[in-house]
């Protein structure tokens, strides 16, 4: 019965533009999120963290008694209460209740009270003494002090020395980039209650319900089958809810266990920003060689990520950064070292792109800086170095479908009328000394699959009820990316029923166990194949019934007859991605099922008086395979692009690195101090096209993953800013631009190029 995964039947539901399956619930305010459930739960206790204000130190005294005198306070949770393992992570380096404070704001205990105000006052009453220890706050300090954590990685192919020997020009430099706050609109939230027989039910805003379940279980000393985690939906995740929710869920679960009452943990925005991990900032030093044809002959670089206080996902993030330093360019000889700095800051974590954007920024920065020195148009330099079919990546995997890069590039240049606009820009720049326009084109090549092969599996549970209605569970979580919409479309397509007959149930660990995180853009690829597998099992069992009743028998009659025939009308589906391999020790193999491609051209105008700028036009051609759900995919491309734009131009994480009393504090821990893109950052003219003739063999209905890759299209804006800044100076000067390229950063870049005049 099983058909090739990619084959799409005629008249398929997949490929139809559909609004988000919960759009009606969203716009009417009826969609429920974890903390909305808490509002509807009787007798809930509210939790508040007891935080500390040293960036590093030992807890020498923790007195919770004063909190218990605060009216409304019910209990204070400390490390003494933990029956299992006092650890919020998987690497045993993240104590849930620490005795060593590792960053400013680190929570050492939690207060439970009848209302949030009492919990807050109770937390303030807890007395904590901390004996300060020296703190490391910047990557530069960490490098100087050799403060690293986790594995040192090396990615190497070819002979770098020979590559540099073959180069006619070599350049070296340093590239630094800031991290990024996820700023999902819904902050971390968990609600736990104990059902009969000690069974824990935890509702959690989590991208990884299985791991939340495992960590709740190990904190409480329970087996996994005693803990059920449900995720209704998330108000955004972006990677920030892959690892970070577990500890909060464990606090809620521990509180519920000890008090017998439902416990709600919901962070305020300020707490969420101060306590939870972010995108890693990176420091990179590099050396690159070019030959006479401006082709790269060799690249060597050392990437140091700012991991924060614990490892979390820093190692795999670093691994993906190394695996994406090539972006879309062939590097004949390459050696990249990677290290994770340990700093006394929040523990940095997954964020859309997972290190890929940071790796790609390094090479785009390098090409943007070197082009004027080579005397070549940056767009020509980029295009000349694009992969061609079958060339090996630094980790040895051959690049397939490289023609898509070329095709997307060509389409952006043509539909974007780049040549005409370049002429207009040059004329405008010559005429106006105070405003300069810039244009840049950058490509994206992003590897799809979890680098860690075992994660590339998924399960689904599909029920067909006697009335013909269909209910799906699968292992993926919905955070706004439209995964559930796609899964409904996949099920409707496979079963051949109208979309309205299919419904999706919330993600629960007691429905589909042992799931992977909804991450790495892989949600639809993995879960879609598992849903399809379950549906096909059911169809296969229906085959004899259909043969008896005739091919045109209505679905409802078919199902009713099958029930009477005692046919099993539900099935568990499973999928694993075949053909993957990865040797983490040598960083070689075939870690990715395929690459997703895209190209963007961005045009900006920069004001020479202030460094402020506008993004005037962006043209994007992006490869989503044969789209499962075009409106959803368009939303992912546009949304990812604007989020990338925020990271690269606007969002500015600042920590207090002074020696004053606030040392280590995140000074931008609020929406008023940390600015993400608003409506005003939407490019005046944004044109997105899906790459045509892009079906992907071996993936569910020929589609491709779309969650992360478009974020990196925003590198085009950064390079366009560089182009515009350069126009304030003379040709042939390398323009250095800080990241994020805030108006102030652009202003200083302009001042530097004016100084070289």
């Amino acid at each position: 019965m099983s058909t090739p995964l990619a084959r799409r039947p005629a008249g398929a539901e997949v490929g139809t533009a559909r609004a988000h399956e919960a759009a009606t619930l969203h716009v009417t305010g009826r969609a429920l999120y974890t903390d909305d459930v808490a509002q509807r739960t009787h007798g809930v206790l509210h939790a508040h963290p007891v935080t500390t204000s040293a960036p590093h130190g030992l807890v020498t005294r923790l007195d919770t008694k004063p909190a218990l005198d605060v009216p409304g306070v019910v209990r204070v949770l400390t490390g003494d209460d933990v029956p299992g393992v006092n650890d919020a992570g998987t690497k045993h380096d993240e104590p849930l209740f620490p005795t060593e404070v590792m960053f400013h704001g680190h929570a050492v205990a939690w207060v439970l009270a009848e209302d949030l105000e009492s919990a807050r006052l109770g937390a303030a009453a807890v007395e904590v003494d901390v004996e300060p220890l020296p703190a490391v706050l910047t990557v530069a300090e960490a490098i100087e002090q050799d403060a690293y954590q986790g594995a040192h990685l090396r990615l190497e192919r070819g002979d770098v020395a020979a590559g540099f020997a073959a180069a006619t020009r070599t350049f070296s430099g340093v590239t630094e980039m800031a991290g990024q706050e996820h700023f999902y609109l819904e902050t971390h939230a968990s609600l736990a209650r104990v059902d009969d027989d000690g069974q824990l039910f935890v509702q959690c805003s989590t991208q990884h319900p299985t791991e939340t379940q495992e960590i709740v279980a190990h904190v409480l000393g329970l087996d996994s089958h005693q803990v059920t985690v449900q995720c209704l939906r998330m108000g955004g995740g972006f990677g920030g809810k892959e690892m970070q929710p577990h500890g909060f869920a464990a606090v809620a679960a521990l509180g519920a266990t000890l008090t017998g009452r439902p416990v709600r943990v919901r962070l305020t925005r300020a707490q969420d920003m101060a306590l939870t991990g972010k995108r890693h900032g990176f420091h990179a030093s590099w050396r690159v060689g070019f030959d006479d044809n401006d082709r790269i002959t060799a690249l060597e670089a050392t990437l140091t990520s700012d991991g924060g206080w614990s490892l979390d996902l820093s190692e795999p993030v670093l691994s993906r950064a190394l695996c994406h330093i090539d972006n879309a360019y062939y590097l004949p000889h390459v050696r990249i070292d990677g290290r994770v700095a340990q700093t006394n800051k929040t523990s940095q974590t997954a964020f859309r792109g997972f290190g890929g954007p940071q790796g790609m920024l390094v090479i785009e920065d390098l090409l943007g800086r070197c082009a004027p020195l080579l005397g070549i148009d940056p767009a020509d330099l980029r295009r000349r170095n694009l992969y061609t079919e079958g060339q090996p990546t630094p980790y040895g995997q051959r690049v397939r479908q490289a023609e898509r890069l070329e095709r997307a590039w060509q389409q952006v240049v043509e539909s974007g009328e780049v040549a005409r606009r370049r002429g207009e820009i040059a004329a405008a720049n010559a005429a106006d000394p105070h405003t300069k326009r810039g244009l840049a084109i950058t490509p994206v090549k992003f590897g799809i699959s979890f680098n860690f092969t075992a994660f590339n599996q998924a399960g689904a549970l599909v029920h067909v009820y006697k009335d013909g209605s269909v209910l799906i569970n699968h292992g993926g979580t919905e955070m706004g990316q439209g995964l559930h919409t796609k899964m409904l479309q996949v099920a409707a397509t496979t079963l051949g029923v109208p979309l309205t007959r299919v419904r999706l149930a919330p993600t629960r660990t007691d429905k589909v166990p042992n799931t992977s995180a909804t991450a790495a853009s892989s949600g639809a690829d993995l879960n879609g194949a598992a849903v399809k597998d379950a549906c096909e099992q059911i169809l296969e069992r229906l085959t004899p019934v259909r043969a008896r009743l005739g091919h045109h028998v209505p679905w409802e009659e078919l199902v009713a007859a099958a029930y009477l025939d005692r046919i099993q009308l539900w099935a568990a589906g499973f999928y694993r991605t075949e053909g993957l391999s990865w040797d983490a020790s040598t960083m070689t193999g075939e870690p990715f099922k395929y690459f997703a491609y895209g190209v963007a051209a961005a045009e900006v105008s920069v004001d020479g008086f202030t460094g402020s700028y506008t993004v005037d036009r962006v043209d994007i051609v992006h490869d989503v395979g044969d789209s499962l759900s075009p409106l959803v995919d368009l939303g992912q491309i546009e949304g990812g692009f604007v989020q990338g734009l925020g990271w690269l131009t606007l969002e500015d994480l600042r920590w207090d690195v002074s020696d004053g009393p606030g040392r280590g504090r995140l000074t931008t821990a609020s929406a008023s101090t940390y600015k993400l893109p608003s409506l005003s950052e939407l490019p005046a003219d944004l044109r997105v096209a899906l790459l045509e003739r892009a079906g992907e063999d071996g993936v569910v209905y020929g589609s491709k993953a779309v969650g992360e890759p478009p974020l990196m299209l925003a590198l085009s804006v950064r390079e366009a800013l560089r182009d515009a800044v350069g126009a304030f100076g003379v040709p042939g000067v390398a323009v250095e631009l800080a990241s994020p390229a805030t108006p102030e950063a652009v202003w200083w870049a302009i001042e530097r190029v004016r100084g070289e005049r």
Partner: protein
Amino acid sequence: MEEGPFVTVNGVVRPLRGTAPPVTALDWLRGIGLTGAKEGCAEGECGACSVLLARPAAEGGGTTEWAATNACLLPAAALAGQEVVTAEGLTVGEWGGSADLHPVQRELAERGGSQCGYCTPGFVCSMAAEYYRAGRDTFDLHALSGNLCRCTGYRPIVDAARALREPAPDDALALRRHHAAPVPTTHASPGFLRPADLAEALAALAETGARAVAGATDVGVESNLRGDRSDLLVAIDRLAELRGFAVDERGVEVGAALTLTEVERRLAGRVPLLDEVVVQFASRLIRNAATIGGNLGTASPVGDLAPALLALEAELVLVSLDSGRVVEREVALVDYFTGYRATVRRPGELIARVRIPLSPPAPGTVTAFHKIAKRRFDDISSAAIAWSLDVSDGVVTRAAIGLGGVAATPLRARASEEALVGCAWQQSALREVARVLAAEGTPMDDHRASAAYRSAMLGQSLLRLHHHATRPAA
């Protein structure tokens, strides 16, 4: 019938209980099961908590408008007597299929305007407020400047906004606009007082622990983020004595409790410099709540209004109670600020009115407001420069420059003004003055900008002003 106070929510009158501060309107609405509005930031920056309030039409005239406001900042007790509509309440009839969706909801849903959906009810309310704005010809996107979406990148939201047509003739919320706005109930509840008149307000504010609250865009933030608590919040936002608006030949007198939206609509272009400020002042959501008196009362060194009002040489009328009698005194704005968030305003004293001198428009008058910030909409200034100059025969004859963000208080750039008067209105001559201006104030390094950038921006502001003032019209 129960004792009051009451509030009308989505057309249903409900008793208003359990509202002692710090309970916000958002907390209260969520507590009665209306969980559509969300807390995204608790400081009026993200708009996920946006709801509609029936308020007197900002232009005046006695009718009603639906104003979107941040429910996370508003004290719940302030809702007494008011009419609130949430995203849930916009859906027509019983909850059902998409046929029942409000036009704003339908456009957003069908165009992919929601992804995670968390910000969506707030966008719905902000968009609905603009949908119902009287006399709207096109959709003003600034209506959405106080709403953040992290998923969509905004394009489908903008498309949805632009697709909106006129409300249907029988649209209940549209019809509601033709009648008078509800009058908030004067009442005292635990921790909250809405006094009947100014004398009662001033008497209450004379007690220690009492604090005046109007739009709560500052009080709410301090309560939510810093845990500041007052024994009593005294609502002054609807006191008639603070809501006057008068224009005569000498100038405009603006009641301190008028919101920024009301100030903008009632000035109706009379003070071009303020028009430039207002569109850059926070967001529509905040401007619907924040008052001109509150903005000066809080005396923030980075507030955008103060530099402009300094350049306009505004005066304040302060009121207090003297032996039970309301007394007034006047103070020039330039003499009002005394230090970081410190002013000559005494405890228990309120700003009653702001006087803005008006001079007849002259051909050589140049005014401008330069806001330096990371984000174009809804950001706090790193530096702000307000200009009011007269140029005659190629020479500057009068200069008033207000600065924000470069010292502990907003200030007049006196040295630059002096250097400017008599200076030729030419780039070459102005470069010297720009250097003087760049040395004004005592700017700091902080998360918004470096001191060096702030100083540079002061100097650049003059060159930019000249460039834009003398550039041939496009």
